Structure formats: structure tokens, C-alpha cells
């Protein structure tokens, strides 16, 4: 039996399918609640996947994240509040359609094109990942160093906001990754005599703190008031599927391509993909004046894009162990825990698992259509659930989840510390995502850097000597230099104008 059949067979088991179904429903619920992001859904899911076999665990995370990104569109459309940051780019447009009485068309487009976008991204993942894995087999510490650095650079400069603050967040993450004894010298660093810190900072409680606890503190501070959900009658969301598909096929394909490409880029994910695609759609549209007034064109392109990005982000995650976005950053942590160390060797030693992962991607995106349509019907009821009850319960899940990782209060302490840290960071407009990537990539970056320095005897030019390593190096430096150069140019122009 070939690896493909073996992979499919691994998925077609009732426990795997049921897990995927349950995780999908969980993802739909979390994604549909504004303020709770797809990454938070994943962070809360991780302690539970801890007790699963590797494949259902991975399946649960794929299904949960795909559904959460789609479900973020529901509150966008119904109450002008993006459920996840990935929906923010086209929230105004969706809500404008609702005001025109076309909520069902916007939501229908969201379901259909999210699923198609996810499937497109999956196809690219299936085609590109094994090819890249073959190339990656020849990689040495030099290439891995540049790849890790490129991922971190993209996270700082492609995200919105101040690059200096992004950099602080990243360096903070790198510092966190340095705690413990697992380093080139085998020396206990920053452990302050604690035996628990010797093993390093546990990734999962840190993640739950940064993504979930910080949001709980913020919402509690604001009083956890209920949302003002207006009753919107949702007609038949299947209406117009055929005509939208025929009229806007160009936008759909362009969204899929942009999304997948941005997803593959290490460090940039679904939210950035949606912003870029919405802007592209407007730029190339024949009716740009209609954008912002409730026009479905931009919605189709960006909703295709964010779900395509999700699958794209798995390419660098599986092939190099470098996360494409913050969701895959968490996923990589789990893959290591499950003994499925990501990297090209996974494709050589364990191809059936890779095919099983691909199968789950296809399944999850197909499931999105029926489950998504059901979620639309349940959407308004879900948003009426009182937040002042919901948020404290989420905090209790954060506590139990962090405890379950090691069955000790240490996890809860970490969760609390990182929760407060995450809250303070966001208060000061310091983004969280670069910090997470720093924590995940810190060890790889340090190990590959120190190994390379020892190999090259301190000669920095050796980082550019191998062809792929040299190309990656130049690319990384460009990502760092380009924003500085363009800022300087803008300033010079301002001075000339003055």
C-alpha cells in the first residue's frame, strides 16, 4: 500500500473524524465571538490535544483554525465587529451589505469562498511542500539561520504598527527562549536558582497567557458588557452562489494566490493576507467607487485570501519547522511534543503522516460548507450569550489548561505572568505575534547561529558562501533595510517639499 492510501486510511477512523468535527464546532464558536481569535482557540485547544494521539491532535488544530477564521466573518457581517483579526479588513463592507438587507449574500459568500480558498491553499501545500522538502534536505545550519531570521524579520516589518515596537516584542521572545539549560554551553541561564526554569519556559502556558489571559483581563477591565445584537433576518445564504462564482472568478483566484503566497511567507498570516487582498481587489476593480458601500467583490477576494493563507502557512511549518503565522507557531510546538518533529526528514521517514495531514485539510475545508451554513443560523443566538458569564469561564479554562500541561501549578504561574505581560504589551501598542515567533524560533536561531559561527571560525562571510544561504541572506537583509530606506526617502521628500 502506498503512502497516500495509508495516509487517507489514517484519517478515516471514527475517533479522528469525531475529533475533527468537535474541534470544528469549537473553532466556529470561538471564532464567532469578537475578541476571541483563532490563535486563542488553538491555544485553548492545545492542553486537550495533549491527551490525544498525534493525528487527531493535528486534525483538531487544522479544523479548529480553519473554522475560526471563517466564523470571524459572522459578527463582522451582523454587528460590524470582526470575530478574528483576519476578518477586520472587510468588516465595513460586510456590514454595509447587512444594512442594505443583503446579510445572507455576504455570509453566503463568506462560507463558499472561505472553503474554496482553503481548498486552493491545500492544493498548493500538497504540491509545494514535498518539493521544498527535497531541497531542504541539503540545508545546513547556515540556511536554517537565515530562514529563521527571515521569518522573524517578516513578522516585524510586514505587520502593522511601529517596527521598533515589533522588534522589542521579538527580542523579548528571544530572551524567553534563552531561559533554561538547553543552550550551546549547556549552562543554566536566567533560571534564578529555580529547578522548574531549568527546563526552559513551557511554551503552552506562555501562549495561553499571551493570547487568552491578556484578552480576559482586557475584557474584564472594560466590564464585559454584552453586545448590542440587532435582530437581522438571514435569508437563504445559498442565494447567488452560482452568479458570484461566475462573475467574480478572477477575484477569487487572485485572492487565493495572494493568500497562499502571504501564508507561505514565514511570519505573515491570514490577517495580513486579507488586508492585502482587499486593497488589491479595490485597485483592480472596474467599480472601485462601490467599495465600502456594501459591494461583494472585495469580500470575495479577501475572504478567499485569509483561508488560503491558513493552509499556505503550513508549508514552511512542515518543511522547515518555521511557522508561517502565529497559529502554526503553536502547532509546531505541539508537533514537537507529539514526536512529529517538523522538517524535511518528516517527509522521508513519515510520508503517510504528511498525506494524512493533507487529507485532514481537504476534509476540514469541505466540512466548512455544511457546518458554516449551520453556524450562520445559530450566529445571532450565539452572540446573545452574556459575556459576563462567558469571560470568567474562559479564565477558568486557561487555568486548568495551563495546569494540565505538567500537572503542576507552575504552568498556571507562567500563564498568569505572560497574561499580564501580554496585556501590558498591547496597552503600549507592542504587538504580541513577534514575541511568540521569537519564543518558537529562538532555540533554532541560536543553535544555527552558534553552530555556524563555530564552523566558520567567526567568519561572517561564510553565511553567504552557499548559494541558497547567500540568497536567503540577501533577502533577509533587504527585508530589514527596505523599510529604513523608504522611511529615509519619505523624510527627504518631506524636507524638499517644505
Amino acid at each position: 500500500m502506498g503512502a497516500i492510501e495509508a495516509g487517507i486510511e489514517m484519517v478515516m477512523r471514527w475517533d479522528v473524524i469525531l475529533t475533527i468535527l468537535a474541534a470544528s464546532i469549537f473553532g466556529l464558536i470561538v471564532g464567532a465571538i469578537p475578541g476571541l481569535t483563532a490563535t486563542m482557540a488553538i491555544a485553548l485547544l492545545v492542553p486537550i490535544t495533549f491527551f490525544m494521539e498525534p493525528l487527531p491532535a493535528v486534525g483538531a488544530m487544522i479544523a479548529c483554525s480553519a473554522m475560526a477564521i471563517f466564523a470571524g466573518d459572522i459578527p463582522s457581517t451582523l454587528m460590524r465587529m470582526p470575530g478574528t483579526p483576519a476578518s477586520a479588513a472587510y468588516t465595513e463592507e460586510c456590514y454595509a451589505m447587512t444594512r442594505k438587507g443583503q446579510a445572507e449574500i455576504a455570509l453566503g459568500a463568506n462560507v463558499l469562498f472561505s472553503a474554496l480558498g482553503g481548498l486552493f491553499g491545500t492544493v498548493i501545500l500538497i504540491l509545494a511542500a514535498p518539493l521544498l522538502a527535497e531541497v531542504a534536505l541539503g540545508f545546513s545550519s547556515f540556511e536554517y539561520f537565515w530562514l529563521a531570521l527571515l521569518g522573524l524579520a517578516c513578522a516585524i516589518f510586514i505587520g502593522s504598527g511601529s517596527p521598533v515596537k515589533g522588534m522589542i516584542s521579538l527580542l523579548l521572545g528571544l530572551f524567553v527562549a534563552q531561559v533554561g539549560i538547553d543552550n550551546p554551553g549547556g549552562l543554566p541561564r536566567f533560571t534564578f536558582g529555580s529547578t522548574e526554569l531549568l527546563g526552559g519556559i513551557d511554551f503552552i502556558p506562555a501562549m495561553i497567557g499571551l493570547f487568552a489571559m491578556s484578552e480576559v483581563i482586557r475584557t474584564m477591565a472594560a466590564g464585559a458588557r454584552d453586545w448590542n445584537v440587532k435582530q437581522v433576518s438571514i435569508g437563504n445564504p445559498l442565494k447567488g452562489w452560482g452568479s458570484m462564482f461566475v462573475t467574480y472568478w478572477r477575484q477569487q483566484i487572485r485572492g487565493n494566490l495572494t493568500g497562499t503566497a502571504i501564508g507561505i511567507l514565514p511570519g505573515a498570516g491570514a490577517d495580513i493576507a486579507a488586508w492585502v487582498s482587499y486593497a488589491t481587489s479595490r485597485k483592480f476593480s472596474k467599480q472601485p467607487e462601490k467599495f465600502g458601500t456594501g459591494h461583494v467583490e472585495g469580500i470575495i477576494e479577501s475572504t478567499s485570501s485569509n483561508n488560503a493563507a491558513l493552509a499556505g502557512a503550513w508549508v514552511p511549518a512542515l518543511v522547515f519547522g518555521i511557522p508561517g503565522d502565529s497559529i502554526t507557531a503553536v502547532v509546531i510546538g505541539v508537533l514537537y511534543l507529539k514526536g512529529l518533529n517538523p522538517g524535511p526528514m518528516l517527509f522521508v521517514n513519515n510520508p503517510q503522516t504528511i498525506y494524512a495531514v493533507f487529507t485532514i485539510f481537504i476534509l476540514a475545508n469541505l466540512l466548512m460548507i455544511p457546518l458554516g451554513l449551520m453556524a450562520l443560523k445559530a450566529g445571532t443566538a450565539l452572540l446573545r450569550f452574556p459575556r459576563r458569564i462567558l469571560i470568567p469561564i474562559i479564565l477558568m479554562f486557561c487555568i486548568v489548561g495551563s495546569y494540565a500541561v505538567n500537572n503542576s501549578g507552575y504552568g498556571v504561574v507562567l500563564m498568569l505572568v505572560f497574561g499580564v505581560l501580554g496585556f501590558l504589551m498591547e496597552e503600549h501598542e507592542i504587538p504580541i505575534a513577534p514575541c511568540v515567533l521569537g519564543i518558537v524560533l529562538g532555540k533554532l536561531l541560536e543553535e544555527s547561529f552558534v553552530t555556524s559561527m563555530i564552523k566558520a571560525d567567526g567568519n561572517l562571510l561564510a553565511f553567504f558562501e552557499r548559494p541558497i544561504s547567500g540568497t536567503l541572506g540577501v533577502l533577509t537583509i533587504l527585508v530589514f533595510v527596505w523599510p529604513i530606506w523608504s522611511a529615509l526617502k519619505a523624510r527627504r521628500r518631506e524636507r524638499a517639499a517644505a
Partner: protein
Amino acid sequence: MRMSDLLVGLLVLLGAAALFAAASTFPPIPGQQYGADVFPKITAAGLAACGFLICIGSVRAGPFPLAQATWVREPGALPRALGTILLTAAYLVLAPHLGFVVTASLVLTGLFLLVRVRIQVAVPTALATALLIYWAFAHGLRVPLPRGLVEGVL
């Protein structure tokens, strides 16, 4: 509560200095030039550069308050944020003695009351949630949540 960028920058600079000082005490790998201290030192240098840039940007932007009360102006916001943090810390202290179900019920009731859920709703909801989570995690996933006072009952 938001500190001015100048304060943030100074804090980052301070942290960078401490990190560099700590890294300087790490002994090298015998016979190697690059050891456990290299990366922390690079991180510290990066942080120092960022802190410096933020300070400069803040000073250039002109007069500024040292701290801004953003959401703190809203009545009750600060006590609610601190209450959430303190209740989580209280869980850590109490759970080993009182056990999960009792502690979680108390913490949840506290959290509900913070956001003005009526007490007749808060107490039963807290108890039901605590029992449900205990059942799911301790029985379903076999997480050894502390039993404490209810030892032998559940």
C-alpha cells in the same frame, strides 16, 4: 494605564543593561570562542538600540505626560483588571488546600461579581461550571486536579 513612550524606552534600556550584565558572567565553552553568552548579548544590544530609538522618538514628539490614564478613567476598570489578576493568584494559593471544585467555585463567583452578575445567578453558575470542568478534566482527561476538601466525595 499607559506609560509614555519615553518611560517604555528607558525600561527597555534598563532591561537591556541587566541582560548584558548577566550574560557577561556566563563562562565560555572551553576551546571555543562562541558559547552561551553570545546570543543573550546580541539580544541585549538589540533591545538597547530599540530602547534608544523609542526614547529619541518620544523626546522629539515634544511635551508628553509620563503616564496616560486611558481606560482607567472608566469607573471600576482598574479594580476589575487587578481583581482578575488577584483572583487567579488566589486560585494558585488556595487550590492545593481547598481543592479544585471549591477554589474554582470561589474564584468564578468572585469574577462574576466583579462584572456585576447578580449573586443568585453567580453562585450556582460558578458551582455548576466548576463541577463540569472537574468532571471533564479529572475524569475525561485524567488530569489530577487537586481534590482538597471534597476528597472522597467526587
